[in-house]
């Protein structure tokens, strides 16, 4: 890919879902999107590892799915909207995924949101970064 604009690179705790990411995560996201079909959800639930073999993912990506390692999935090219499908199938509230991704407990995360969300101070630029 062309170098992503420095501006994107400068934003902390954020994935720039560009062509490189798309390519890296293509099969992973194809698996995740396959869960939109009721039959596929059933097949996946019945035998997760077997179902995963029908997608040309890397072993790392498969393991991240089996481990429900959301941070790893994101690192390996997972698209966040595709990941919501898996959370729905599992019945995991997405706030929990967000708590995990930002290194907080569910309680801390909920309290932060109820207090008006994550404050913008220190999360605009890597130069002033206070997260991650």
């Amino acid at each position, binding site marked *: 890919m062309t170098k*992503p*604009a420095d*501006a*994107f690179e*400068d*934003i*902390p*705790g*954020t*994935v*720039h*879902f*560009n*062509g490189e990411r*798309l390519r890296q995560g*293509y099969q992973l*996201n*194809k698996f995740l*999107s396959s*869960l*939109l*079909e*009721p039959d596929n*959800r059933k097949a996946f639930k019945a035998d997760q590892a077997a179902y995963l073999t029908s997608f040309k993912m890397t072993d790392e990506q498969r393991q991240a799915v089996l481990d429900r390692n959301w941070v790893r999935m*994101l690192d390996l090219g997972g*698209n*966040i*909207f*595709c*990941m*919501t*499908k898996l959370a*729905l*199938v599992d019945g995991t509230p*997405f*706030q929990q995924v*967000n*708590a995990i*991704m*930002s*290194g907080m407990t569910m309680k801390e*995360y909920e309290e*932060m*949101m*109820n207090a*008006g*969300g*994550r404050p*913008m101070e220190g*999360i*605009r*630029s890597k130069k002033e970064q206070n*997260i*991650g």
Partner: protein
Amino acid sequence: MAEIVAGFCTSHVPLLGRVIDGGRTQEPYWKPIFQGYEPTKKWLADLKPDVVIVIYNDHANGFSFKYTPTFAIGCADEFNPADEGHGPRHVPVVHGHSRLAWHMTESLVADQFDMTIMNEMDVDHGLTVPLSLACGQPEAWPFKVIPICVNVIQYPQPTAERCYLLGKAIRRAVESYDEDLKVVIAGTGGMSHQIHGARSGLINQKFDNWFIDKLTTSPAELTKISHAEYVREVGAEGMEIIMWLTMRGALDDNVDVLHRFYHVPAMNTAVGNVIMQNSRASA
């Protein structure tokens, strides 16, 4: 002649759809949000538009990454609510206005907008939640809908300026239609939120409110902001508010704000809802 008589913007938070569908709008956490939409519901019920053009984005539900159109226009007669992972929402089928949609497609393509023509597609919460917020739970949606789906989830997204210019082109398209129709345009998405990574949960009330101010008085300024700046200020997922600019582009430079509502949070997201109409219309 068809005419765009007004526009509204609204967040399209999927959870709000689930709360409506589950009959939980009166719960203390949710009630203030749905109260904020009451004026919009009343306004739309009184206005009785024939068609609502909904600018929205899909979230890997109706589309897969197999192909990603920058701008897609729904030309079919019907659009079914998408299965987003736990069965489709139990909301009415969305009825299109195929004749107007095809006319708009002709006009937009002649105007150098490189539309993708959709003859079959499912619509996800990006489109159906705004309908629920604005109409409640009717047995059938009380107007026809022309879905215009914008790619905001895969880089490169269209620029904020291109979204604004699309609004202007939509207006030319509607106004050159040969039949009398009362048309409303809706911009959806936002406001500030990010639902991935270490910045998950960000909310930027200051930017959101500044954005609504500028959207009202000087939208062209908002078209100069880069994707990266939008992502920085309103989050990677919140940058979808550039779709509000499409609605804004379809209205006059001078508008009156009939309703303005802002609430924090709906779980992960700031919620905004604004109604605008051309100033001459209210004069």
